[in-house]
């Protein structure tokens, strides 16, 4: 079987997402973009035009890369399903607003190519595309990806980096309201917590997003942080801080429920969410990275195929 024979058209099982009830990928992506819009607007309000520049460049590069890849590999889905725009925007959301152009372009291209197209386009990738790009950039250009270092001119600080380097006393004075309204440094969209919550709620109400993963993710983060806080209040930040600082909300509503890389069963989805949420706090506490959200989701996604094996036993099977 060294030669590859194309699968017969009749028996082809297409890659997920399978669900089809008149909805299209394009529609889903359009609604996701709509849900992300408030956060994008807030990002421009808080960080000014540089944020807009980063988002625009990231989206443009993502679309161009996808077009080129799709041209190179005939037979892949069309580019106009807006997925590239979503990837580009989500990747931009993880960057500091001052990110230089080459960082945005390289990261966005990596997201689309390594995170999606090498696996045959939408639905094949075992990892969430924007996170792949983020991790590659984080590994390569630590300085430019560091929120505090790259945003020296801003009067805001990154609460998670402060927690990491200076301890919980340093963040005790930060009000939760400031965190909610994006008055913190971090990924330019990831910190617009209130706007992201609104967008997430919109997707949940419209039924475009099943609540298992987001809620389990937030619960996992909250409970793990609570345990740490309960064991040693002097050394750990309060659980609500962990929920509102950094990218936890973006992760819960937009990154973790990524269609091709998250589980599909009810129980698996809950396990997946809890696990990712728990890992967020573990990485924040022990790891070298201030915000553990992207890495936590990547790790949980590696477990997706295994978690998906938890399924109810079919009737009549011993």
């Amino acid at each position: 079987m060294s030669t590859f024979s194309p699968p017969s058209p009749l028996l082809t099982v297409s890659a997920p997402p399978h669900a089809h009830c008149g909805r299209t990928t394009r529609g889903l992506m359009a609604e996701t973009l709509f849900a992300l819009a408030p956060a994008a607007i807030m990002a421009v309000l808080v960080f000014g035009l540089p944020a807009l520049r980063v988002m625009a460049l990231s989206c443009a590069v993502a679309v161009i890369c996808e077009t080129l890849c799709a041209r190179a590999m005939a037979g892949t889905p069309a580019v106009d399903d807006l997925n590239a725009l979503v990837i580009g925007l989500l990747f931009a959301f993880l960057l500091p607003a001052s990110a230089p152009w080459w960082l945005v372009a390289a990261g966005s291209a990596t997201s689309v190519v390594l995170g999606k197209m090498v696996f045959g386009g939408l639905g094949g990738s075992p990892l969430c595309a924007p996170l792949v790009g983020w991790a590659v950039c984080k590994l390569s250009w630590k300085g430019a990806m560091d929120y505090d270092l790259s945003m020296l001119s801003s009067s805001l600080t990154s609460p998670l980096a402060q927690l990491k380097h200076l301890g919980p006393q340093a963040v005790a004075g930060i009000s939760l309201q400031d965190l909610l309204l994006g008055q913190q440094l971090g990924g330019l969209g990831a910190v617009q917590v209130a706007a992201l919550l609104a967008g997430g709620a919109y997707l949940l109400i419209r039924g475009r997003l099943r609540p298992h993963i987001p809620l389990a993710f937030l619960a996992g983060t909250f409970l793990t942080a609570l345990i740490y806080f309960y064991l040693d209040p002097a050394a750990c930040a309060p659980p609500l801080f962990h929920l509102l600082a950094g990218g936890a909300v973006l992760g819960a509503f937009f990154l973790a429920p990524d269609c091709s890389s998250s589980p599909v069963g009810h129980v698996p989805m809950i396990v997946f969410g809890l696990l990712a949420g728990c890992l967020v706090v573990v990485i924040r506490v022990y790891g070298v990275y201030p915000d553990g959200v992207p890495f936590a989701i990547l790790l949980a996604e590696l477990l997706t195929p295994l978690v998906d094996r938890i399924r109810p036993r079919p009737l009549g099977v011993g």
Partner: protein
Amino acid sequence: MGATWKELTKGLWREIPPFRLVLGLCPTLAVTKTADNGLGMGLAVIFVLTLSNLAVSALRRLIPAKVRIACFIVIAATLVVGVELLMQAFAYPLYQRLGIFVPLIVVNCIILGRAEAFASRNPVHLSVADGLGMGLGFTLSLTLLGALREVLGYGTVFGLCLFGPGFKPFSFMIEAPGAFVCLGLVLAGMNALTNWQRKRQGLAAVEGPGHDCKSCGLCAADKK
């Protein structure tokens, strides 16, 4: 003469390891952070592979079939210890940089694979040509891969600075993930090239070489 030449050159392109003949992945990934590491590793492998092919081929009528694998291992291990000693005596910094991967040449399937698949069935001159060719191909691949990763990851090649100070090193390439991805993309490029050539010759496209131990004679021999 023609046959010898053929065996010598096949390792340089047609069956170049590890790009066409997927053998010896661990050192390929591990020591190609820089071009000179890749070159050093390659030279060590040429030495071991050529001499092991020579010894195996010379002794092939003497070695009983049942203990041949044990004999191959002893021969390869002897040569590897020899390389270790010579490297420590004449190239100690390289020995330090390659670290644990110098003794691990002994389990590089390229050595035992060629002994089993080629040297134990062919006369001495062909076996030496095969070992030399395969070793040169391996060296070439490792040096190229090392140069690629070094250029992107450090902005240098053989330690020479290529770009100005404005270059932002793509450090991903010198970390473990970069090693895997880089080799994966190079292999994909080789596959695409093969299929493009086949298409021009009017042949059907094939999937690239797998890693079902088909290319490594040893495992196949054990399965019998």
